[in-house]
């Protein structure tokens, strides 16, 4: 489709599609990233959308964005600053101007930069000059008028015509990156199988954009991102919520159990419930409960009845589930509670990311109430950690709290598909049918897990509940028994440490700084640490997935570094936790509480400052 005047080969590039929340930016970004993935690039994406479904049109608050970071080399974050910004209106420019790289390309819809819209976005007259972007590669594309022209003979109403603007913009970006249109065209044929007119209109707009970009040639230089060198295998794009849901299904299959999810819709966790509700073909029982409490309680009932039971939520919902988690601790039933963290407290910033529910996960219940706490760290490893959370819950007869976050939930990356035969079998401690009378709180000496007797088995009838029991299962108010049982339940959780992997260090095993993180900040920390290492600094990274219990080698790892800096998207909860668990070290902190992930610069600057202070001190 035409020649390229000049193509610049790049290791990586960041593109941000941005527009009104009704402009279809999420779809545009998804189609672009799927195309890039099929081409063989490594990538990472992040959607960024307002909490309101349709915030006031044309306002900065209503801007919806989708960022794609693709590369020839390994990509671990959706990127900080964009090389290409597509701005469908002035508000989109306003929201993103400070995140454009110097010299980057800005494509905007000239037709939407009306006086009224410019004013609505908070500009006076000329957004480009007011943002000092004149030195950038600015393309004012008459997108609105071009789609009207291209589709004038298709008999569509004006609204439907304007709805294809995003595809015109996508067509331009495809040309810029020399990508094929086929995947997107196929997508429309499938999506509008029953509305061939709409399929055709979108394809026409897409091609119109592509040809327009080619014709104006203002878009030079075009970028060339070669396929990444990634491990052999079959890949797919996956986001954190889907990966989490699939991890549970894989665990159910490996345990030979039915999967039950009791849950209540809440942003940004809803995707897990939706994905599992769609998987009736694999026998998943999904129960959309009347509230968060019923979400976990139905799951707990299903666990009592012998299913692999999970419940999904986000921070405010976790608050509501606290009492039932306590019951699960007391009844020693297996259940996984996924908390897809969002910025709090209260309703907070429901569509933005944060890591501020750590203390709640660890301690947010009445009484001495320990649970296993695990955190996923990339969109695709949500699969692995959901599987592990389920395995530990089932084999140790304990609730497991799995922490994800908004950034992981919605972010996507290519994922090498595992084969089920390579995953371990899960062996819950089912009660021996001949062990009559069955003692519900009798436990094995190794894991301290009690046996699981599922209703329906003759002779194993028993009662459990929230009242303190003796290990024979009778209700007991004996003071010494309570202390004994509290310590026993704590010890059971501690013993999970016997089988979790040790903390890994990325980089040299000793040095000046150990960057410590947990969960979803991993990609940013890794990228920053790599860059620091490339610049010759003795900086390494340790990112925690297992929070409670902590891996056994923490002390050995930490003791090899002069400074430890704990980086997290909260006011220092993990740092405080480490201060409790490993008092022998002192911890520096890097914290950010803006509803946004770290930038690479945030992390590098902090490390460099510590290194300088070290030299001076």
């Amino acid at each position, binding site marked *: 489709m035409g020649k390229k005047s000049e193509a610049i080969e790049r290791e990586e590039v960041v593109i941000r599609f941005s527009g009104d929340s009704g402009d279809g930016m999420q779809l545009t970004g998804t189609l672009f990233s*799927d195309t890039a*993935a*099929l081409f*063989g690039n490594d990538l990472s994406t992040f959607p960024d959308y307002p909490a309101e479904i349709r915030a006031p049109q044309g306002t900065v608050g209503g801007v919806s964005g989708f960022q794609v970071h693709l590369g020839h080399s390994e990509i671990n974050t959706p990127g900080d600053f964009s090389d290409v910004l597509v701005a469908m209106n002035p508000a989109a420019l306003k929201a993103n101007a400070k995140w454009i790289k110097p010299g980057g390309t800005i494509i905007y819809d000239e037709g939407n930069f009306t006086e009224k819209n410019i004013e609505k976005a908070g500009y006076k007259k000329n957004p480009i000059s007011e943002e000092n972007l004149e030195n950038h590669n600015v393309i004012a594309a008459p997108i609105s008028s071009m789609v009207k022209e291209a589709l004038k003979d298709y008999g569509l109403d004006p609204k439907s015509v304007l709805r294809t603007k995003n595809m015109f913009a996508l067509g331009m970006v495809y040309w810029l990156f020399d990508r094929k249109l086929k995947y997107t065209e196929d997508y429309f044929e499938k999506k509008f199988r029953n509305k061939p007119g709409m399929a055709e209109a979108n394809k026409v707009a897409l091609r119109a954009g592509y040809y327009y970009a080619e014709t104006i040639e203002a878009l030079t230089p075009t970028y060339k991102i070669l396929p990444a060198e*990634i*491990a*052999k*295998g*079959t*890949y*797919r*794009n996956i986001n954190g919520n889907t990966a989490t849901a*699939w991890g549970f*299904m*894989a665990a159910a*299959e490996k345990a030979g159990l*039915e999967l*039950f999810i009791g849950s209540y819709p809440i942003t940004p966790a809803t995707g897990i419930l939706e994905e599992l509700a769609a*998987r*009736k*073909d*694999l*026998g998943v*029982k999904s*129960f959309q*409960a*009347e*509230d968060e*409490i*019923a979400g976990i*309680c*139905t799951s*707990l*009932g*299903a*666990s*009592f*009845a*012998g299913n692999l*039971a999970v419940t999904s939520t986000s921070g405010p919902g976790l608050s509501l589930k606290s*009492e*039932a988690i306590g*019951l699960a601790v007391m009844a020693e039933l297996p259940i996984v509670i996924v908390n897809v963290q969002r910025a709090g407290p209260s309703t907070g910033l429901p569509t933005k990311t944060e890591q501020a529910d750590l203390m709640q996960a660890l301690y947010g219940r009445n009484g001495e109430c320990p649970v296993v706490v695990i955190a996923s760290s990339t969109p695709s490893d949500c699969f692995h950690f959901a599987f592990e959370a389920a395995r530990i819950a089932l084999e140790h007869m304990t609730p497991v709290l799995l922490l994800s976050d908004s950034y992981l939930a919605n972010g996507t990356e290519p994922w090498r*598909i*595992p*084969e*089920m035969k390579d995953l371990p079998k899960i062996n819950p401690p089912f009660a021996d049918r001949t062990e009559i009378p069955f003692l519900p709180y009798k436990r094995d000496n190794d894991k301290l897990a009690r046996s699981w007797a599922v*209703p*329906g088995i*003759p*002779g194993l*009838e*028993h*009662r*459990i*509940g*929230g*009242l303190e029991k003796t290990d024979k299962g*009778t*209700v007991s108010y004996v003071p010494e028994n309570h202390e004994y049982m509290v310590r026993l339940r704590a010890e059971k959780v501690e013993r999970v440490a016997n089988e979790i992997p040790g903390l890994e260090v990325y980089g040299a095993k000793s040095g000046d700084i150990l960057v410590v993180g947990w969960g979803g900040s991993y990609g940013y920390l890794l990228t920053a640490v790599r860059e620091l290492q490339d610049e010759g600094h003795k900086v390494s990274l340790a990112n925690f997935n297992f929070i409670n219990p902590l891996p056994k080698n923490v002390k050995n790892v930490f003791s090899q570094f002069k400074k430890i800096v704990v980086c997290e998207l909260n006011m220092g909860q993990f740092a405080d936790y480490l201060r409790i668990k490993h008092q022998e070290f002192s911890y520096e902190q890097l914290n950010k509480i803006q509803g946004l992930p770290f930038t690479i610069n945030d992390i590098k600057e902090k490390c460099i400052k510590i290194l300088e202070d070290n030299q001076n001190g």
Partner: protein
Amino acid sequence: MAETQVYKYTPKDFKSDQEVRWCPGCGDHAVLSSVQKALVELGIPKERFAFISGIGCSSRFPYYMNTYGFHSIHGRAAAIASGVKTANPELSVWQITGDGDALAIGGNHFIHAIRRNIDINIILFNNEIYGLTKGQYSPTSTKGLVTKTSPFGTVEEPFSVGELVIGAKGKFFARTIDTNIALSTQIYIEAAKHKGTSVIEVLQNCVIFNDGIHDTIAEKEVRDDRTLILKHGQPMTFGKNNEKGLILEGCRRLKAVNLGEDGITEKNILVHDAFEPNPGIQYMLANMKYPEYPVALGVIRSVDGPTYDISVQEQIEGIKKTAKIKCMDDLLKSGSTWSVG
């Protein structure tokens, strides 16, 4: 009923080894005994019973049953029981709850379990008081009741359990009195056989904090005149010699009448239809209060309808039949994938 011969239980088989710790004279003892009698008649193997309770005096119930049991947290038994039944529809699931547990803290789960028509049997012990916390008013306490938290009398209207059940699209509602073991046993049997959520309100006496609250209708000398035991297909008569009955006045309201007076014969007396889907008359029956009316006991409403647990199962089975994805490996490889190397 062929199965009844297979499982020859006696009520004793359903007693656990735990010492029953309710107050002497508490109505709960009688409920426990009635339930144990009823289970014997159901032809269901013992291991298939699961008793789920919340918090309150009555919620200790599962500990005294030699079945699977789960004593949970305040108000949540309906949700837990819903999970148990959905996970395994083969089980006979019983929820034991009280007026505070089901209608105050657990009100939301109560109405939604009923709306879904999930096949569980809910025995609601209604003593119109909080007993375990030692005497505070409940959502069913009569307006004006003086308690520790209403020293000047309550100013709120109570719930009527039957009204709430029917309003929540309930398909089975029955009422009994704790001390009437024969009637209670019969009702539990019918509730168990009914497919869908069955709610049984037990007018239960709290001997310590609300003693005699149901005496006006439950005392031996007066109960025949002040209660009406409904039987499907039978005329709604009551009184020692069935000399009283109910008629429909002007198609709008029920009226208690004496047979033989004003030319009223048995022909004029309403015949109970528990199976009528339109709840109009059942609603009026459920709401009858002494002294204007006798209080209705027995199965007031029993209507068939699809149950949640079976619908979930059937939907899964239906989808599985034609599904292309049969296992996780199929799912992992489905949709857009690409190969490297």
